């Protein structure tokens, strides 16, 4: 099953490679990994989308907790949560289908953030699934380039991940 694991770790050089090294050394799946500093600059927050049986996910969280630089680990799938991903997508937008593109972007609540003579760059956020649907709806012939951040997530309600 798919899981989103959020990690607070010391914002130190090398911490990222410890986490990614753990996943490759132990042959755990990794769908996406994002990381950035938090409001407390000494801490980074990492979000890893992975998949595996419940036994594997249990080992993943235990192994992550064992890394000396990891401060806290939560599996967001244990409770209601919100998941978002950002995509920048550059599409062909010639005179004749410029309007179509604009409409399509609106339907998915995208924003056109850059325009050239025959391209649009659209910014879109949502679940991974929503981004996939957008890509599918556009069709590969018009897509010039995509850049996706990978998912990040946060628990709903009172649950917080902090130290």
């Amino acid at each position: 099953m798919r899981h989103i694991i959020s990690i607070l770790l010391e914002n130190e050089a090398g911490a990222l490679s410890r986490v990614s090294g753990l996943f490759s050394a132990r042959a755990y799946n990794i769908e996406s990994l994002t990381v950035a500093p938090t409001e407390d600059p000494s801490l980074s927050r990492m979000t890893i989308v992975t998949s595996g049986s419940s036994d594997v996910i249990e080992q993943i969280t235990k192994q992550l907790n064992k890394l000396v630089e990891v401060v806290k680990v939560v599996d967001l799938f244990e409770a209601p949560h919100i998941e978002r991903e950002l995509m920048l997508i550059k599409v062909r937008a010639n005179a004749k289908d410029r309007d179509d593109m604009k409409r399509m972007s609106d339907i998915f609540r995208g924003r056109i953030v850059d325009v050239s003579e025959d391209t649009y760059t659209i910014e879109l956020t949502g679940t991974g699934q929503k981004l996939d649907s957008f890509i599918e709806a556009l069709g590969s012939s018009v897509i010039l380039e995509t850049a996706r951040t990978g998912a990040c997530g946060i628990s709903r309600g009172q649950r917080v991940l902090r130290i």
Partner: protein
Amino acid sequence: MELTGAEILIKCLQAEKVEYVFGYPGGAVLYIYDELFKQNKVKHVLVRHEQGATHAADGYSRSSRKVGVALVTSGPGVTNAVTGIATAYMDSIPMVIISGQVPTHAIGLDAFQECDAVGITRPCVKHNFLVKDVKDLALTIKKAFYLAATGRPGPVLVDIPKDVTTDKCKFEYPETITMRSYNPVVKGHTGQIKKAVQLLLEAKRPMIYAGGGVILSDAAPQLTKLVRMLGFPCTNTLMGLGGFPATDKHFVGMLGMHGTYEANMAMQNCDVLVAIGARFDDRVIGDPAHFGQVPRKIIHIDIDPSSISKRVKVDVPIVGHVPDVLDDLIKLIDASKQRPEAKALAAWWEQIKLWKTKDCLRYDRKSKIIKPQFVLEKLYEITKGDAIITSDVGQHQMWAAQFYKFDKPRRWINSGGLGTMGFGLPAAMGAQMANPDASVVCVTGEASFQMCIQELSTCKQYRLPIKIVNLNNRYMGMVRQWQQFFHGNRYSESYMDALPDFVKLAESYGHIGISIDKPADVEPALKEAFKRKDELVFMDFITDQKENVYPMVGGGKGLTEMILAEEL
């Protein structure tokens, strides 16, 4: 007053009361060696290969419960050390490895003798550091010793660029340390401990399975007390030998791939299993699916949550430090009026006695060729079971584990997790340094011994009176055994050709060598060797070439699917 990084490092080692540093010099660590030269509190032991430095630090640690320290130069120095670091990591041995690095400004430029030490060792250390600023040095060393020795122990590497050893700053060594991201649990959860006590007192076919965690945490007294008060059978893993006295009537021998018939049968057929500081290794329980066929309740005590329910699902996990958890268990059992049902326990012991009658460790005692098992039995007698035994890897290692009855912890020193040939001799050096008055014996094979043979020179320099028992079968015996059992007797590349004359070899290093090829000469040779208290004696026992280690559970087989010695 400001000190250089090299001065600070030595001050840190002194503050940690480091007795010995096992090392080998080179360009990147010259300033550190300069400072070592100027003082005499921290003694340096010059090995002949960096692998030897790490194994020696490891053997020092295992035999003394202190943190072992190794010092190596950048590039090839650190790559040579990797085998020893990985060996310590797999067996959870507390070590600090200091490696030199090229100057900070040269890092990443493919400088002379540069290698990414932190990157290379990352998967085989508990943690590692690159010190980029001399101001961080003292705190990093403090952290390294703290991390190595607490929680689940392990090796920690500190990589120090050359310019950091000459840069200066004020020196202050922190007395204590806390790290928000690192808080090993000590006390077990009370509710879980109560559940465990209940299961123990209701058990009808109980089994206690104790591993290296008992040795690492010095919990042998508590384990011994628990087993005796409950009257339960107890087995040890290869790493746990000595954690419970082997001569105690509750001991059923080692379990696992080369464990005793009775230990493996009891492990499989028990109804309540207590795993203490043991990690259900594949060489211990065989095929986990086969192991899972018999329903049983499992209690697992371990300081590392990731050891629990990794290969086998357990019912009562207890995360904590073994001695603390066992103290709590013992207290609760003491306080309870309930005792395990005597009749059921007696019947269980009857069953175990029946299994014992298989006499699974028997061998041909009338043989005209020296049997390796015979040498080890004699070694046990002559040393009165009180020597520190290190070993290399192979058949000789298994026979030593089976035939030397360890009654005390930290007397059996071997590479279990990584199975590193070449470990025995340098580990014996470390053990002899830590225990100058003890009899230290290295049980080895002619193939393993050649992997760190150069350390015979170190032994001479430091006058280490190690006794070497070479069980010379002219084969990589363990490999040959697998080839005999599972590869149609095709002994592909497992014959040891062109062996040196070990007696002359020992003599050329300035030691004593003896060759023994008749069973009748085994005892006199051992006696003679142990009489020479101040000298290293290399005993080359020419043993039966085709002897096998029994019982054996084949790779991937169920624990009770044992190959036993054919009728003798």
